């Protein structure tokens, strides 16, 4: 079985991260799996972890009283799930529901935040990577708002 550190190194999100930081981050991680339909988290719950998806597909959902659960976006192998752990008050904004079997690495938020506070270079590296993810998702949302198939 591969070590968490090796699995993280193979993931796009951590590509080219210095080995000592991979080791630090891996210390906060564990392997997890979710069955299809088994919610990973719900809106409003504490964001105690974030997830590096290794296999499967996850729907990010919001509840709308008229339409029920609305899927806003799907995430796949190679994506990261969740950035609410970075920003106070550390609560999930949406629901995350696996559409298939999902294998992921869960990274403990408190552990990571502590390490980032202790080592600002690590914090900066992680923030840069999350900023890319956030900008990417903002772009995607803008295109959805633009209604590009109009």
């Amino acid at each position, binding site marked *: 079985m591969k070590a968490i550190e090796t699995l993280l190194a193979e993931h796009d999100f951590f590509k080219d991260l210095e080995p000592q930081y991979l080791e630090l981050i891996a210390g906060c991680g564990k392997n997890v799996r979710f069955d299809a339909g088994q919610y990973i988290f719900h809106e409003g719950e504490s964001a105690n972890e974030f997830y590096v998806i290794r296999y499967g597909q996850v729907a990010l959902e919001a509840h709308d009283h008229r339409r029920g659960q609305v*899927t806003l976006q*799907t995430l796949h192998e190679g994506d990261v799930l969740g950035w609410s752990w970075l920003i106070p008050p550390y609560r999930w904004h949406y629901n995350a529901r696996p559409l298939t079997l999902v294998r992921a690495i869960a990274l403990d938020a408190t552990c990571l935040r502590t390490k980032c506070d202790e080592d600002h270079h690590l914090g900066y590296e992680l923030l840069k990577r999350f900023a890319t993810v956030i900008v990417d998702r903002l772009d995607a949302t803008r295109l959805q708002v633009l209604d590009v198939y109009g």
Partner: protein
Amino acid sequence: MVELLEQREQILDPMRPEPFVIQRVGRESYDTFTVELAPRDPYRTFDFAPGQFNMLYAFGVGEIPISISGDPSHPERLVHTTRAVGTVTNAMSNLKVGDEIGVRGPFGNEWPVNQASGHDVVLVAGGIGLAPLRPALYQVLRHRERYGKVVLLYGTRSPEDILFRSELERWRARFDLEVYITVDYADSKWHSNVGVVTKLIPKAPFDPLHTVAMICGPEVMMRFTAIELQKRGVSNDNIYVSMERNMKCAVGFCGHCQFGPVFICKDGPIFTYQQVQSWVTRWVV
């Protein structure tokens, strides 16, 4: 003899609509329909290339350009898929089997299906844009051995907007074709991708250095798709888009469809992104 000459004149006059009879009308979605037409003249066939369009005339209402969505290897049957959004398309959506439509065409150039030989082929469709790309896919699949990977990326607003559902299912079942569908929003019954079609590009299986991409959809969608393809490393010369403007005569006389230095009807509608890139980001062209 006179009859033959008249017939020949009719064929050669690009401004004269020929009567075609509706053979079948099919509903693709709540606002999109497909009509299958046959020429009133039983000896007439209708050869066309993937990407070409016809001017369809709803008698007494008006004429509009519509891309051909059928199989080029079946020239005896002319197929058009369109959305009922204006006066003419609404009138057409009310026509029945046996009614007639005037047809001028085919006009315009074609998707680079032959030039793509030896390459991976990526087709990116947005909304109704799948209809003009379908003939290209038919042709690629007919000569599947000539190509590397073949990928279809298709985005629509919602699952209800997906066109050619049964055909998409058949395509998805093939081992030699990768089909990815995404929608902008969906309820929890939808078990596939949600997000814009551009987001499928980073993970789609193709070799960017040996890929020909063909994009069809609204201009804004094509622009952002081309940007994502560029990011993957596909060159502008190998990215093809199907442009749309207000086409009236379809033969480059009237000037309605002028787009920068070209006429969409005569020089297009298919262009490399290299040719149109500087024009698609301008507000007025």
